[in-house]
């Protein structure tokens, strides 16, 4: 049952990622991957909120964690970082890596402290 809930929620998350990331990237004139950055950072903040909210029952939290798992992505972050870094290691690849990492973990902590 939990696997089914997580699966459907994750597919909805994927749909939201596609729409949000595409819209944000489309409005940006930069080739910096701001679409993926925006979904990963907002997803990191939201998972902190969910993890801190201990009053959530288990099905609601499986659905929320499943949704955010599908909404955020690791593989696209990696491949976009590699593309920024080609052919030699460029500053923007390092920025994409460290900004996502640092801001992501800080936002998860911020979300967690808001609800816990």
């Amino acid at each position: 049952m939990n696997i089914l809930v997580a699966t459907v929620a994750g597919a909805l998350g994927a749909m939201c990622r596609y729409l949000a990331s595409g819209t944000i990237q489309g409005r940006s004139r930069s080739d910096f991957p701001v679409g993926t950055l925006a979904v990963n950072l907002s997803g990191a903040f939201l998972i902190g909120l969910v993890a801190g909210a201990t009053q959530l029952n288990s099905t609601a939290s499986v659905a929320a964690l499943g949704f955010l798992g599908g909404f955020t992505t690791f593989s696209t972050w990696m491949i976009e970082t590699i593309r920024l870094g080609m052919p030699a290691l460029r500053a923007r690849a390092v920025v994409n890596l460290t900004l996502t990492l640092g801001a992501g973990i800080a936002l998860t902590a911020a979300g967690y402290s808001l609800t816990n």
Partner: protein
Amino acid sequence: MTSRQYRSNYRRQLPALVAVVGGGLIGSAARAIVGFWLPTPTGHFPTGIFVINITGSFLIGLYLARRERAAVARLSLPFWAIGVLGSFTTFSAFSLDVLRLLTEGQTPTAVVYVVSSTVGGLVAALLGQRVGQAAG
């Protein structure tokens, strides 16, 4: 943008959206199953998400390299790269596990997890690209 333009954009995007959702079902189911098999005990290295993120990074490199060399359907990219692999891998669970390790006082494990996931993910994606290019 007028509402008619919005509707026409939406109609053009619909097949790709369906491909993303279909791929998302597969990727999310696979992530849920791996997470069920490899649960992370409190204070330990999150093996399940680590394996998922490294495997998914390898496969996206492999997929994109193959895609440059072979003719693929228009909906292949939204299905495989955005849907299946995009949902299989996750940043939010990774970030939450790092926070948990830090708050549990497992700072060395948190550092090992962050470094091995990011360096490992980049190496895996590059390796996937190489394998995809070598396959001709």
